């Protein structure tokens, strides 16, 4: 997961790009078999020990999910913790520092 974050006047814009196939469960592979649904279900962002964003995704979020949001009261040097878990129980957690 790539995370970019920049703070100006205490407001931090956050952009992230998660790497995930986000299979809808409707597409077929080369042999004509349905590729099972495999998608991020929930992504969270923690700042100063508090979850500020909980993003629930279905199968209609694009492959390699992109998300952009803005946190108030976040200064340069603050650490953000981004985590996601998918429908097969896989997960990723990344810490990023606000620039």
């Amino acid at each position: 997961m790539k995370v970019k974050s920049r703070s100006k006047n205490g407001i931090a814009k956050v952009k992230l790009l998660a790497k995930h196939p986000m299979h809808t469960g409707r597409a077929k592979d080369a042999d004509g078999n349905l590729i099972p649904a495999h998608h991020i279900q929930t992504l969270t962002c923690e700042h100063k020990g508090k979850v500020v964003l909980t993003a629930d995704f279905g199968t209609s979020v694009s492959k390699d999910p992109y998300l952009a949001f803005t946190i108030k009261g976040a200064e340069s040097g603050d650490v953000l913790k981004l985590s996601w878990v998918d429908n097969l129980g896989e997960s990723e957690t990344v810490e990023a520092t606000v620039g």
Partner: protein
Amino acid sequence: MINRRKFLTVLGAASPVVAALMAFPGTVLAWAENAFKATSVEDAEAALFPGSQAQPSGQVKLKAPQIAENGAVVPITVSTDLPDVSNISVLVEKNPNPLCASFKIDPALQPEISVRIRMGETSNVIALVEAGGKTYQASQEVKVTIGGCGG
């Protein structure tokens, strides 16, 4: 000296927040399965916001392309100047499961989210905002030339 690890850490194991999400499926933190499995906008809305009827509002701003060349990646931004926003959700009316994403917004967040979604065909995209305990909506038709759900 700043520990390098603090800057970028990738953990294979679930973080405490993620573990909590997985351990308590019945709580409000859980993924809203009924809403995501709903096959109509009305059912998804009822599952997300029981007993609420979303009112169209000019204060909900939905930014979406008029024409999406690639239905697999349609950039959407929802923002609002309504106060006390607790949720922003994005739906695509004609997708088999209309609910694309639902965002729980903490007061520390500006009520604005950008996300990229899949659209199977030309359809209305609907933004729902829960603010002050009530729900509001805005919608816009997005024309899709190549659908993005079935590969």
